[in-house]
């Protein structure tokens, strides 16, 4: 089928105003928040599940690759159309279909922005818990595809723990429903399989999520330390005490300095590390709980513990953490935002190795991380006008990842594999593991038209395989 007829057919499905194919349109769909880019041939904007189904039927009949796109904030290149074809943009499928306060469920279209969902329920005292740092922009569909996490996922779990049911259009255009409003359904847990599948098994067109009451009381604390080791020990001590804070975030010195230069959040620049701790729960006993945490910090040599006295102070403390990437973005023209996981008891060792790697490659590195679950986000500034510097930054990045894996960690905590780390998958999975995953993919996506080129290493490209110690 020639391009013109394909455009006509797509236009019949969604209307001409929802099909784009001129270079001046396509240029803006080459990228997401990752470094690479690739040009699609068409961008279509469906508004219903039926339209998505018809689009995919045409695509699979004509053997045209396609990829779903939410807000394009993904950092692993998931939404980049590496093989060209159709970008199925879901930004116009952004309706909140139902909010059922009584059974604490919401049903939404995939293009709904994460923070908008919480805002829609604010008056009633409810919210949607997973809160990626990009929550102002990213979509629930994108969150489902990447199994996104956020600071508050420590106590409450990542996206998969909050998604109960999906409507999915399979790559051949068939529409299926998985799960539902109840907590458990008979049969295979397809919802669990689809969450985190990075858009390679189909396009999600409806999502049932769990919503929760906002906590009655919140306390936010900032503890600063003169050594990374003290901070890390404090994290372990807090968790060992049986209290799971709602959030437990750590930042290192370079991150603190960058943030203070830009946001003046009140973080002590002389500290080697800060911990941002948030407690949630009932009003009763909250003060006692906070006191207990302050004591743990102090007994682990905290140089200062600040407790936010009101909402404004609380927002101020969070501001520093939330703008960390932006603050780094001010001192460079691109940064590499890494995402890896290490066992909590290895945090300090891994960090010192990260600093050594940075020194070896002559690059800067700042670390912000979800300390509670060992999810590290080293940020490496890059200067895109300097090829040599970028190369050093990228090589340092690779080495950082490998060092996390050596320490018993894994490739990605929440940003996904996508295009970024597909060639590194053999570092943590052996042939049998990968084959099992590929077989699952083949059941849903036998012709590999649905988001091709992601997750799995390119066949024929060989990589030194250093098996992860398990």
């Amino acid at each position, binding site marked *: 089928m020639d391009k013109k007829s394909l455009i006509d057919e797509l236009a019949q499905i969604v209307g001409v105003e929802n099909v784009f194919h001129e270079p001046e349109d396509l240029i803006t769909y080459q990228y997401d928040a990752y470094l690479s880019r690739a040009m699609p041939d068409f961008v279509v904007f469906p508004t219903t599940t039926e339209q998505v189904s018809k689009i995919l039927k045409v695509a699979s009949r004509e053997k045209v690759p396609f990829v779903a796109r939410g807000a394009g904030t993904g950092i692993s290149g998931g939404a980049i159309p590496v093989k060209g074809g159709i970008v199925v943009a879901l930004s116009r499928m952004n309706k909140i279909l139902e909010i059922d306060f009584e059974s604490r469920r919401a049903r939404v279209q995939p293009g709904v922005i994460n923070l908008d969902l919480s805002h829609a329920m604010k008056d009633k005292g409810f919210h949607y818990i997973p809160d990626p740092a990009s929550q102002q922009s*990213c979509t629930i569909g994108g969150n489902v595809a990447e199994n996104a996490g956020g600071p508050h996922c420590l106590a409450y779990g990542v996206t998969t723990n909050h998604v109960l049911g999906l409507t999915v259009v399979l790559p051949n255009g068939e529409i299926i429903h998985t799960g539902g409003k109840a907590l458990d359904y008979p049969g295979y847990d397809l919802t669990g399989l689809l969450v985190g599948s990075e858009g390679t098994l189909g396009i999600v067109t409806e999502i049932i999520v769990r919503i929760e009451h906002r906590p009655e009381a919140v306390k936010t604390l900032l503890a600063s330390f003169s050594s990374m080791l003290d901070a890390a020990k404090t994290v372990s001590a807090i968790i060992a005490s049986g209290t799971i804070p709602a959030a437990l975030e750590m930042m290192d010195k370079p991150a603190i300095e960058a943030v203070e230069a830009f946001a003046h959040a009140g973080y002590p620049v002389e500290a080697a590390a800060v911990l941002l701790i948030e407690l949630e729960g009932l009003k009763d006993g909250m003060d006692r709980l906070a006191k207990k945490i302050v004591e743990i910090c102090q007994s682990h040599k905290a140089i200062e513990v600040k407790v936010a006295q009101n909402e404004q102070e609380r927002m101020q403390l969070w501001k520093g953490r939330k703008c960390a990437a932006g603050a780094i973005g001010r001192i460079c023209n691109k940064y590499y935002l890494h995402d890896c996981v290490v066992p909590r008891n290895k945090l300090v060792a891994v960090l010192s190795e990260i600093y050594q790697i940075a020194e070896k490659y002559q690059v800067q590195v700042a670390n912000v991380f979800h300390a509670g679950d060992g999810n590290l986000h080293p940020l490496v500034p890059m200067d895109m006008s300097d090829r040599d510097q970028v190369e050093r930054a990228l090589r340092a990045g690779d080495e950082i990842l490998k060092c996390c894996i050596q320490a018993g960690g894994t490739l990605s905590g929440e940003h996904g594999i996508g295009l970024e780390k597909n060639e590194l998958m053999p570092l943590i999975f052996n042939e049998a593991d990968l084959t099992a995953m590929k077989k699952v993919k083949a059941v849903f996506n036998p012709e590999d038209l649905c988001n091709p080129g992601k997750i799995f290493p390119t066949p024929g490209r060989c990589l030194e395989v250093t098996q992860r110690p398990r």
Partner: protein
Amino acid sequence: MPIEDLLKNVGVDFQEDSVHEEIMKCVGCGLCLPYCPTYREVGTEMASPRGRIALAKEYFDGKLKITPRFAEHLYLCLECLACETACPSGVKFHRIMEPAREAIKKNLERPLWDRMVRDMVFKHIFPYPKRLQLLAGFLRLYQVSGLQWLVRKTGLLRSISESLEETEQMLPPIQPKALRDALKEVTPPLGGRKQYRVGFLSGCVMNLVFTPINLATVRVLARNGCEVITPRFQKCCGALHLHNGETDIARQMARYNIDIFEKLQLDALLVNSAGCGSALKEYGELLKDDSRYAQKASAFSQKVKDISEFLVEIGFVKPQGAIYRKVAYDDPCHLIHGQGIKFQPREILKSIPGLELVELKESDWCCGSAGIYNITHPELSMRLLDRKMAHVKATGADLLATANPGCILQLRWGAKRAGLKMDVVHVVELLDQAYSKELE
């Protein structure tokens, strides 16, 4: 992805100029998207800040020619600068958009009619105060003669263009010349004690249709110990020209204004129109490559202050007269995003006894006025306006305050469309009223 593949395009066509410097600051995170009104309404990446930067980059890298479609995408932008406030990496979006529009202006053969209208307005009317007055006089005549009624009734304008019809209904009454002449070149401080000597940039549209606001501004300043100098022969600030790719004309007008005010030895240069203030504060940037004017221009820009900014800075006299109204305040884009002025107008409103200031949802969103956007993109402009008015209605306010002439016109029209019987006023008018009530 292998590092070798990623490096293919890095640093290859890197260029060192001010546009590229700004473009390179964009890390592509997408965090600005939800704050962009056009992205929110249209939902496409081309209608987003990140998409517009990507398009501009392609052009400035020499990889894309300017086409009508390219122009269409870039002109859909409101230049509301909400993306600048939102961007954590500090991208100054207008420093990319303005040169891009200038390039469009230079490279694109626009349809003849379109060009005619634009040229008429930008080249032949705005730079010449006399002609602007003539046009204003003409509009006023048209208004008082009853012809307006006829034109509206017969739908004559609709047959030309829907958009013109809407704009026509928005036309404000032009103030009679006598009133305009009431704005004196020199106004002494009230009560005689002079604390500041300030210049007043009366603005072209402001001066013609919002004469009462200008008079109120001068009274408020005088009340706060200012001697106010309003040079008669000042020119338009050039904001509209700048946003529409007429950079050279904007520079000419800037030089003229700098010359006029420079010799007056002023403590501050005051503006009551957010759009003008934003442009005047950028003269330094605009003329940075002009060896004769660069320094003068940045000195000029440093003296420019929005009226609310200045009043709060000098610790304005708190009014004693009361105004018993429930007021919502709508932030003009070029005040909140362009100049970062957010709390000052609110502080002034809150200082007025009896006045209840209510929270307006999305008050930092563009109302769709955006210079001449409501003329060039009537459909989207009205969608934004209706969205705004729905929020206004929800506040239950009986008065809407803002701080920019374009916004006042647009919001008045919005109130009418929404069937709200509410007036739209400038913040400084309310302060002036509160002062004058002290005497009662």
